[in-house]
């Protein structure tokens, strides 16, 4: 086919173009055919296995056709709580195929995907890059009918969300749902003020101010931002990079989406400030594919900043300080939120985490010193530079200064984004969000902690309950076991597969958990769950495997009565194995009567 050839030849003969070529082919042809794999490999001087490896790594790439139009329906627990099952059934009935398949006429493909950052407006789906929120079964059917009748997904967006979602460059149904505006991110900010203030100081002074403010990374890990910048600046290298991690993939977090929608200028200023501080000239915004609908507007904001002299050469009137920002897209992979995996992906490869050391501040993007910071961290740093460390330090707790954006979703009256000071208790948050009856609160997403009522006085801060932003509320009727199972499925799906404890261990953990959930567990099984969970955490090399057993471990700790009620007490061993069921297929295939004397062996 000539088509593949035409697409591939447009790209430079450079392996780092891999993901860009693959994305182009996927978008135009609906999949990456064998022909495309060979052509891409030959053009970029890669092996076919490397190309196939990259294609199969990301959710939104596929070696097999995904239909003329493709529906990616969010499979997060909140989506399920808000009616996903009925919506999925409606999609299937109307399309005439199951999820994971393409309709017989090839017009519509249905696929599940991990959290797309719309947890406060579920069930949601991405259809040909267009986000649909609060789906009903009727709407699902109408979408499929429309696609079949030739109305593109973009033509089916009838109403727009609030704020910049209405801008001509976005025109999305998505709502910001900003419920509480705090003084840091949503405080009054004069565009350009942060960059102008920064260049009036020395880079060392900027770093010092951020250090004095006590700013800790907002993505979840909480590394001191000033220190990271200092490490990066200290490395001797001809080039350094600032990378903004806009790949929030933790189920239940969506606060970076709101920053990218409403405060992109502040974020880009933060990147320029970081560039000035570490001595970088290039910033990269790694934007998760799910947020691709924001890209045109982000590019327009960048263009505007260049015009105003906030980005570009000799910026903010500072001769010799050049800084500009490029946007790179992800393609659907939770693991790419891990900074070294993100760098691999930004370089056009499979997003597999790197060994550390060297840390990204020593050898990051293209092996150059790189500071990778979360969206919220960079926007916050810009505000600190303007308002000063003392202003910032006066908010929050002594060890967790400032404010935090929380993405609240689930069983509450007011889901959305809250900018709150650190030190807020779960009870206070539930009060704000309108969830007086909450049975459990998942703080920090699946990789965080499931807190029971007994823990509602605990505080959101780095020393008690840290969170990248995700807070999911579960009402009194929710089954915690269903939640845990959904979270474990998520980690199994998202494990990159490098470390055996994570690749195989999470599967074994889920199997064992299901045995317990089905009432076939014993005390020995609970001991296994705990021991295996600790093993997976201790022997995985990145944050995914180091936290993936948390859904099981934290619910065992905070809801022991649920587990006690499910296990068979006093029994040493309960098999999951059922001989009668296990021989059924074999008997049918050989046309034999099952003749197993089960009782004889008991």
């Amino acid at each position: 086919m000539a088509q593949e050839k035409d697409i591939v030849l447009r790209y430079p003969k450079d392996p780092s173009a891999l993901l860009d070529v693959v994305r182009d082919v996927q978008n135009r042809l609906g999949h990456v055919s064998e022909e495309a794999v060979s052509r891409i490999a030959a053009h970029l001087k890669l092996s076919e296995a490397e190309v196939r490896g990259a294609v199969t790594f990301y959710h939104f790439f596929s070696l097999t056709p995904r239909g003329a139009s493709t529906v990616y329906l969010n499979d997060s627990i909140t989506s399920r709580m808000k009616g996903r099952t009925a919506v999925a059934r409606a999609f299937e009935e109307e399309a005439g195929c199951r999820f994971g398949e393409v309709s017989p006429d090839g017009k519509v493909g249905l696929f599940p995907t991990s959290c797309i950052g719309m947890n406060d407006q579920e069930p949601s789906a991405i259809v040909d890059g267009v986000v649909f929120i609060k789906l009903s079964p009727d709407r699902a059917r109408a979408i499929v009918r429309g696609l079949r009748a030739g109305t593109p997904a973009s033509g089916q967006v009838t109403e727009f969300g609030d704020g910049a979602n209405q801008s001509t460059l976005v025109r999305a149904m998505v709502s910001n749902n900003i419920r509480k505006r705090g003084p840091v991110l949503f405080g009054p900010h004069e565009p350009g003020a942060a960059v102008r203030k920064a260049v009036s100081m020395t880079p060392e002074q900027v770093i010092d101010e951020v250090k004095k403010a006590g700013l800790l990374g907002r993505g979840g890990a909480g590394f001191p931002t000033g220190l990271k910048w200092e490490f990066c600046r200290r490395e001797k290298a001809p080039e350094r990079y600032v990378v903004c991690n806009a790949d929030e993939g933790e189920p239940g977090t969506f606060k970076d989406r709101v920053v990218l929608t409403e405060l992109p200028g502040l974020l880009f200023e933060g990147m320029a400030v970081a560039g000035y501080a570490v001595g970088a000239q290039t910033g990269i915004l790694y934007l998760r594919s799910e947020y691709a609908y924001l890209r045109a507007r982000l590019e327009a904001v960048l263009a505007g900043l260049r015009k105003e002299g906030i980005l570009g050469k000799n910026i903010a009137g500072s001769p010799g300080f050049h800084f500009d920002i490029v946007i790179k897209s992800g393609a659907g992979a939770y693991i790419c939120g891990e900074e070294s995996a993100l760098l691999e992906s930004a370089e056009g490869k499979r997003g597999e985490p790197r060994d550390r050391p060297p840390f990204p501040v020593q050898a990051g993007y293209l092996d150059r010193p790189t500071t990778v910071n979360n969206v919220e961290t960079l926007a916050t740093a810009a505000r600190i530079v303007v308002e000063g460390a003392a202003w910032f330090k006066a908010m929050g707790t002594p060890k967790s200064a400032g404010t935090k954006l929380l993405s609240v979703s689930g069983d509450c009256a007011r889901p959305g984004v809250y900018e709150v000071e650190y030190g807020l208790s779960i009870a206070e948050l539930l009060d704000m969000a309108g969830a007086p009856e909450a049975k459990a609160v998942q703080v920090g997403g699946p990789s965080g902690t499931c807190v029971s009522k007994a823990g509602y006085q605990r505080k959101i801060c780095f020393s008690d309950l840290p969170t990248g932003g995700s807070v999911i509320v579960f009402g009194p009727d929710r089954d915690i076991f269903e939640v845990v199972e959904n979270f474990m499925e998520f980690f199994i799906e998202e494990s990159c597969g490098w470390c055996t404890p994570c690749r195989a261990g999470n599967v074994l953990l889920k199997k064992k958990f299901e045995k317990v959930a089905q009432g076939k567990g014993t005390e020995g099984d609970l001991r296994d769950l705990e021991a295996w969970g600790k093993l997976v955490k201790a022997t995985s090399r990145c944050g995914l495997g180091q936290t993936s057993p948390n859904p099981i471990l934290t619910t065992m700790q905070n809801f022991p009565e649920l587990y006690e009620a499910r296990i068979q007490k006093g029994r040493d061993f309960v098999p999951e194995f059922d001989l009668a069921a296990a021989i059924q297929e074999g008997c049918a295939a050989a046309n034999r009567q099952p003749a197993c004397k089960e009782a004889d062996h008991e």
Partner: protein
Amino acid sequence: MSKPVIATASLAGCFGCHMSLLDIDERILGLIDLVEFNKSPIDDIKTFTKPVDVGLIEGGCCNSENVEVLRSFRKNCKVLVSVGECAIMGGLPAMRNGIPIRECLEEAYLNSPSVDPEDRTIPNDEDLPIILDKVYPCHEVVKIDHFLPGCPPSADLIWEAVTALVEGRPLQLTYDLIKFD
């Protein structure tokens, strides 16, 4: 005082773990002094004739007979040990677990080019064990007390484990015994 009694079985395995047991070289003479073998391919005793102290199981369960043997071991052995990858995880035989059993049987007995065109039948004699839908690790079928990893576990590992179990010492598998690369 009578010697501790050992029984062994190879289920869906390759007998490699039994070979590894025999690979203890001259220590086999010491082993004979130390223990008595009951049901085992090593002495060809077919049925249990007395209570057994330690049962060693090689291989997982791929058919109904494996399940029957494993259950009888559990009934007759005080301590039951999964020996090697196949017993612990299903091993190589479990590679079929991703393929429906009907497809496996049809490929082997109906569609394979080496099948006699005059005799295309899936074996169905009632004396044959019935094949299971997939290969199961032993601990999903009965309670297993100890696991000896390896493919096969080394002779030294088996020696250390068996002597410890019959002498009532705690099982201490040092790093060098369970390091395989």
